[in-house]
């Protein structure tokens, strides 16, 4: 029996759909499959992207500030200063020497004062050779201020043996390097550089950055230690910066360059390839969504065209009873909207089920999930909303046709 809070149009729309049984069921299943595919695909894609971004950003800062590169300069004949012609120019890129960022303390202060910035950490980095007995390996040494740097890359969480506390004579090395050299926590290593500096450091921690190359080459020492080892007294080779909004990093980087004159690269710029891939995926995903949406729309429209034909007598009777064209229009628009809505509810369920199965069965060799997947309520809300709107839009032509039926013709049948 009619509930007093349900409007006339809803009552008629729901009854017509219910009376349609198989016809209604089939189109709802059709819509559900389409929505399910979209939900599953979108969640998978955003899961992949989020996973990549998480992995990238757990190992690097959002923005690097670097000292200016030394540029090549052509030799010019001094006598003809007015003559711009360059004769016998020898142009050769100069050897890149380690250079410090000018006035880095002032620059760091200036950046730290920016509201978008969360951490600024100076790093003095360079290449060195680590020697133990007769074995030696080329390494890259990063001199850090642990308090700051660990807020950018959480080395502590990646330490597998020992700890991350660095004093002037300590060193952190990767698991691969430790294996290559046969050293463990507490052992001493001799580190030399091309300029001839030699120091002996104690391994206090061994880390696993999740990447073989990094575990072989990367080492961390205290900032002062690196400065004296690399011949950069008081200097740093980069400032590592993190910001509040990782996607806004490039904008902040440009602002930093504008404000300080120091070259700043954001992770967005250095991960350009990744973003190109993401944008290609997004385009493909959008195209798929569009075409699935289109086929959903045509499916709903074709079912409603049939319903209008089936119900034309009843539409005529309703019109004879005093039901307006507007009311008939709304009855059929609602049917479209309801088909879209119920299809998308079922489709969200299908999509979620597929995601759960995916998470359960698509696993790494060690049994851990390929990547953590989040069930984003916004995705489901968007799917529901879009499918409902698609249903409404698809219903428009059939609904208009129903509303414009000539009641006399409709009743004569």
């Amino acid at each position, binding site marked *: *029996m*009619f*509930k*007093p*809070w*349900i*409007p*006339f149009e809803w*009552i*008629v729309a729901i*009854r*017509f759909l*219910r*009376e349609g049984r198989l016809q209604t069921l089939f189109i709802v299943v059709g819509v559900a499959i389409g929505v399910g595919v979209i939900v599953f695909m979108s969640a998978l894609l955003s899961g992949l992207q989020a996973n990549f971004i998480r992995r990238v950003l757990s190992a690097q800062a959002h923005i690097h500030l670097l000292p200016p590169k030394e540029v090549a300069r052509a030799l010019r004949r001094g006598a003809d200063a007015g003559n711009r012609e360059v004769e016998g120019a020898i142009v050769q890129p100069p050897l890149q020497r380690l250079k410090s960022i000018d006035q880095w303390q002032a620059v760091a202060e200036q950046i730290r004062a920016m509201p978008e910035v969360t951490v600024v950490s100076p790093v003095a980095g360079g290449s060195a050779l680590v020697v133990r007995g007769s074995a030696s390996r080329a390494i890259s040494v990063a001199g850090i201020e642990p308090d700051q740097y660990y807020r950018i890359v959480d080395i502590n969480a990646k330490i597998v043996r020992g700890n991350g506390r660095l004093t002037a004579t300590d060193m952190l090395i990767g698991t691969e390097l430790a294996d290559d050299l046969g050293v463990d926590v507490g052992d001493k290593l001799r580190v030399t550089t091309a300029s001839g500096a030699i120091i002996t450091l104690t391994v206090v921690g061994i880390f696993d950055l999740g990447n073989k190359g990094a575990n072989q080459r990367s080492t961390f020492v205290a900032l002062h230690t690196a400065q004296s080892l690399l011949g950069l007294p008081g200097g740093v080779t980069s400032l590592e910066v993190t910001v509040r909004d990782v996607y806004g990093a490039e904008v902040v980087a440009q602002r930093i360059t504008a404000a300080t004159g120091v070259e700043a690269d954001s992770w967005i710029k250095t991960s350009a390839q990744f973003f190109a891939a993401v944008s290609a995926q997004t385009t493909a995903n959008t195209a798929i969504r569009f075409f699935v949406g289109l086929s959903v729309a045509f499916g709903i429209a074709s079912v409603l065209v049939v319903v209008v034909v089936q119900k034309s*007598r*009843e539409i*005529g*009777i*309703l*019109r*004879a*009873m*005093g*039901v*307006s*064209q507007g*009311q008939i229009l709304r009855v059929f628009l609602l049917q479209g909207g309801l088909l879209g809505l119920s299809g998308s509810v079922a489709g969200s369920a299908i999509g979620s089920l597929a995601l759960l199965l995916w998470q359960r069965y698509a696993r790494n060799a060690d049994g851990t999930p390929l990547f953590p997947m989040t069930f984003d309520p916004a995705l489901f809300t968007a799917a529901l909303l879009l499918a409902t709107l698609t249903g409404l839009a698809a219903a428009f032509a059939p609904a208009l046709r129903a509303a414009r039926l000539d*009641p*006399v013709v409709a*009743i*004569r*049948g």
Partner: protein
Amino acid sequence: MADVAPASGAVTVPPLASAVVVQLRGVRKAFNVGTPIETEVLHGIDLSLHKGEFCAVMGPSGSGKSTLLNIVGLLDRPTAGTLTVFGEETTTLDDRALTRLRGHNIGFVFQNHHLITAFSALENVMMPMLGAAGFASKAMRQRAAGLIENVGLTAWQNNLAGNLSGGQQQRVAVARALAMNPALVLADEPTGNLDTRSADEVFALLRRFNQEQGTTVLFVTHNPALAARCDKTIQVIDGLASK
């Protein structure tokens, strides 16, 4: 009939001085106007119906009886002439106004028991009230139940319309036509498909409402015995009306 509650949302029509409910002057109706197959079905009909009249419409098949009823019922527009319903000149009204006028003042009963199969008998009777008010109410339900009782179908009121017999469906259709307590009921061969007994029942129902409520009825029939029981008979022959 005293136990039937008033229709909610019904427009009460002020009694006309002349008590003329429907007035047609020179009404013509042509189909497929402007095409080679243009045919005029009604050739200038003059007709007045007074309040409380029960008028039979007879005539051979294809003479234009249904066409006339559809025009009087504001479902169709005349190609020429004027139609005044409840004192309102209708030729200038738009679809919205016609629909409203129709919904509140005119009830239809068609030959092929046109019920809405997705709804029960009781719900079918509620439909015109629901459409007019937009929302269901207890009063609506009570009025519909009263009408269903009046046509003797209380025991079947919750059956889906399609599950009733032809005679039962037509009685439901009569109850539905009366839901808004209309001043005018148009019945286009309501007994045409029924056996003699069911036909008698449906006719008696319409006659009873006509006498108790003062409802004006236009009743198309091929049955001279039923026509003889009406107040007057109009013959429609070749698109012209005569008494």
